[in-house]
């Protein structure tokens, strides 16, 4: 451990190195890429997916998953739009969007944490229910003429786009929750080893409820921003967003087996995807090629990240000369990279 701290551990920062490489590479490919307008544009574009990604990250670290995020986002966003149209109250509309997100996730939490139903199945069911509910609510039609509701998705505060500011605020809150609170440590512990967490006195079910509530708040906010950005209540919005939301944390080093992941890594993962999409649009790369390039880069980035951490594990074993302890700690790539995980 002491030996490790003495040298710069590049593998711990591999995802940020990849992000930097994408950024530098993109800056050579298009003269418009580095402009302030474009950077703000990218932040605006990645806001919704990154907010959803933080929710997905929280659940994956806790050993769960949410396949309903896209559909619940649409349900929450459209509900918010409808309330705004009826009341003209932006605050109430936002609160209703969040309430819908939380309500759907409380149902998920009850089925997962209390009834011990697999999250994969529960959230798959919620995906169908939420999509059905929003289609029934709107009869499949877009809700139009949103008026000042668009401020949330299209407005600026000074020069900064509101969605980007919301994203920064949420990033700080999620980082704090995951790294500085008992709740965060509980999520890491439950995802890392549920039985051990229970034996250690952690209220596992309560932690899962809280993780779903956090996810619900984030999905609700994402829904409000999405609808405001497109200036319509779209009941068909968010199809496939659950997978995009999962992609960012996985690229950012979150382990599907739970217990491992960081807020910064998820942000980096979302930015890599966002920057790639942006530079390909700026340079006129067609959508078929974009899919190939995106897939290749995602697989390469994750493979490199895993490979570099495996290298570190081997190095740690060799340096320590004691196989048992370090091997157990390093068996899960990235486990030692996360202070809260190691803290639990």
């Amino acid at each position: 451990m002491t030996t490790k701290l003495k040298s710069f551990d590049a593998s711990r920062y591999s995802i940020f190195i990849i992000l930097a490489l994408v950024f530098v590479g993109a800056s050579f490919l298009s003269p418009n890429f580095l402009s302030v307008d474009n950077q703000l544009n990218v932040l605006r574009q990645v806001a919704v997916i990154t907010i959803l990604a933080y929710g997905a990250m929280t659940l994956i670290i806790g050993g769960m998953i949410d396949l309903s995020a896209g559909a619940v986002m649409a349900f929450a966003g459209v509900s918010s739009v409808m309330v705004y149209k009826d009341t003209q109250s932006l605050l109430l509309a936002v609160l209703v969007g969040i309430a819908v997100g939380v309500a759907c996730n409380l149902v998920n939490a009850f089925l997962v944490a209390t009834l011990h139903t697999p999250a994969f199945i529960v959230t798959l069911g919620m995906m169908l229910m939420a999509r059905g509910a929003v289609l029934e609510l709107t009869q499949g039609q877009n809700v139009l003429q949103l008026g000042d509701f668009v401020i949330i998705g299209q407005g600026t505060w000074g020069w900064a786009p509101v969605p980007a500011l919301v994203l920064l605020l949420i990033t700080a809150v999620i980082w704090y929750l995951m790294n500085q609170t008992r709740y965060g440590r509980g999520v890491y512990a439950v995802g890392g080893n549920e039985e051990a967490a229970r034996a250690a006195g952690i209220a596992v079910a309560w932690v899962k409820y809280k993780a779903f509530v956090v996810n619900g708040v984030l999905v609700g906010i994402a829904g409000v921003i999405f609808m405001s950005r497109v200036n319509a209540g779209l009941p068909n919005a968010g199809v496939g967003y659950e997978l995009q939301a999962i992609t960012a944390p996985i690229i950012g080093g979150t382990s599907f087996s739970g217990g491992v992941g960081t807020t910064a890594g998820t942000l980096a993962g979302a930015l890599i995807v966002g920057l790639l999409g942006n530079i390909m649009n700026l340079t006129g790369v067609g959508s078929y090629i974009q899919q190939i390039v995106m897939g290749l880069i995602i697989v390469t980035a994750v493979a490199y990240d895993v490979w570099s951490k495996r290298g570190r594990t081997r190095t740690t074993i060799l340096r320590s000369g004691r196989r048992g302890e370090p091997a157990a700690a390093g068996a899960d790539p990235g486990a030692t990279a996360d202070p809260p995980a190691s803290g639990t």
Partner: protein
Amino acid sequence: MKTPTRRTFTAGLAAAAVAVGLAGCGGVTVGNPGSDDTAERTQKDSYRVAYIARAQVDSFAAWLANEMKDEAKDYDDISLQVFDGQADDEVENKMIENAVANKFDAIIIQANNGAAQQPYIQQAVDAGIVTITTNPRVDGIEGANSVDANPYDQGGVVAKLALEQVPQNAKVVVLNGPGGNFHSTQRRKAWEAEFFEKRPDVEIVAEDIANWNKDEALTLMEDWSLANPQIDAIISMNDNMAAGALEAVKGKSAFDGILAYGVDGTPEATLMIQKGEMTATALQNAAELAQLNMKAVHDLLTGAEDEVNVDIGNPLITKDNAQKYVDLYKKAGLITQ
């Protein structure tokens, strides 16, 4: 305050779950052998008609499904059941198989992919069931009927207008529907033949697929408008994408007066045209499609017609006549104020 809100939404979700479940039960009856009765149709007091919609999440398909349900109410002898193909060939094919197995008197199919559904539509025809393909028409099936809009004409009527409106040496962007989609490719062909081949001075600075979606078009246009400081027109294969692209340049002075063309004549596009934000679209009237479908199915079932293949019109909507269509949508409850 918290409890009632939660209760309301939970109750809503439960109701939706029941609705989804019931819909599923209606569509999935298996094990019945398909009828091979190809004899002449016998007159009945009532007819069971299945309408297999492409996808209820597609706003146009949902509008058409709603219009079909409304129109069916005008026929005392028709009982219409609507099924959701979920934009999935496999699901849509199963729905057709189930409708054949359930011995519906007629099946109206809004294909997700004509080629993928063709053998299953053929099965329905071979089983002696009145079969209509609609929006889009599926060609090459002997004995099937069709009610459709002509997507080439829809694109063409807007392209001809753009021929006069798009300035010399203009730079334009083009937004397409999903790859391989019949309506998208036909509309794009019309733009090529009726506009781009006649206007070699016009340059396409960017073109891509936005899958009919407003949010995807918004993201593309945000990026394109940074890479191309001059864009004179948005040429979109549907209205949703045109509206999304316009959202991206809203408030940017460099793009004041940008022209935008779509197809479908959605309520949103009609309002935007009325306000002068969008230039023109061709109406694909779901109400008219539904009227013709129900008339066709009734005529075929009662023996008034042996074969029906009809197209609806493609009226052009511009600022001059937008009010008429806004009023139409207000009457239909699709525009609420």
